[in-house]
């Protein structure tokens, strides 16, 4: 019968002993030490296996060409990310439906309805088309009486 503290069976104890031995072994390898750790209570067969795996399993390195190519692709992706999160100018639609481009930090936009057009620098054509569509929607007379009433209230608040 194997003695084991409460809550742990013999498998856990053996695994813990193996883990401690392995920790010491890998630390010795990391230091570049030739000799392994002093014999402990770990199973001698497992000790031999651990020593062998630590010695025989190599670490593979990617080719220089691949590493540099991926570094370039990551750098390009990083530039795109930076551009997309940079401060963009605000396109503001005024109450009369006119469009105004407001630089970052201009607080005078409070009089209109600000719209953030994401990626305006990289997809300017799409953004301008969207802004033109919104301006057209604002100028167009509302179809329903309710929409007309809502727009009248909004204009009254802004003026």
């Amino acid at each position: 019968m194997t003695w084991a503290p409460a809550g742990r069976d013999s498998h856990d104890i053996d695994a813990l002993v193996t883990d401690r031995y392995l920790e010491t072994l890998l630390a010795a390898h990391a230091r570049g030490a030739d000799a392994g750790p002093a014999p402990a209570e770990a199973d001698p067969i497992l000790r031999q296996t651990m020593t062998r795996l630590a010695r025989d399993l190599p670490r593979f390195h990617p080719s220089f060409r691949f590493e540099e190519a991926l570094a370039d692709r990551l750098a390009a992706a990083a530039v795109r990310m930076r551009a997309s999160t940079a401060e963009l100018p605000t396109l503001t639609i005024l109450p009369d439906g006119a469009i105004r481009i407001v630089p970052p930090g201009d607080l005078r936009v409070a009089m209109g309805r600000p719209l953030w057009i994401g990626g305006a620098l990289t997809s300017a054509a799409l953004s301008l088309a969207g802004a033109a569509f919104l301006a057209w929607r604002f100028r167009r007379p509302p179809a329903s009486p309710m929409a007309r009433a809502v727009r009248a209230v909004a204009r009254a608040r802004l003026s």
Partner: protein
Amino acid sequence: MARPAFRRVDRPEEGGLRLAPLDRDRDLVEAAQADPARFDALYRKYVAQVYSYAYYELRDHHEAEDATERTFMAALAGLRRFEERATPADGGGASTFRVWLFQIARNAVAERRRRLRRRPEAPLDAAEALPATTDVEGDAARRDDVAAAMRAIDRLPDDRRRAVILRFVEEMSTPEIAGILGRSDGAVRVLIHRALRSVARDLGDTRR
């Protein structure tokens, strides 16, 4: 936002004890979160580890390169959402970024493996790629040892094989492996212990 976690570091030249970030990659991660262009430092630090892990799992250089690329692209894209979760129990050398990165790598590799299962398995030529020295007989014996060790871990069930690769090749701690595999520390210790028993039997068989 990263949760502050510190450890005490003995620096006599700086007047004794001082506090240092618990996660050893914290400075690099914060720099990359502020400016994605600085992700390069993290990439250079871990590209070989991720690639090596992917190669052990996929046994094909092109597939390993593909999985490595997916891993780092996903890491760069998701870096702003990364949160450090180091605790004092993780120890001074802990890197929760590395755990997070390898969680991504594990998923990328698993996706490739699922696809590769429908194709013939690539031959084991890793041992042949080892650098040669002037000791021809020694080189041959070393290649045999490496091939035998790799065959032995190839025969392990997936979870045991992953744990052994992360422990022996990547030299990760048990808590780090537990974080990557989504298991408890005790479960990882038992996985490795059982894997070693299987490998011991296997290597014993191959030596006869």
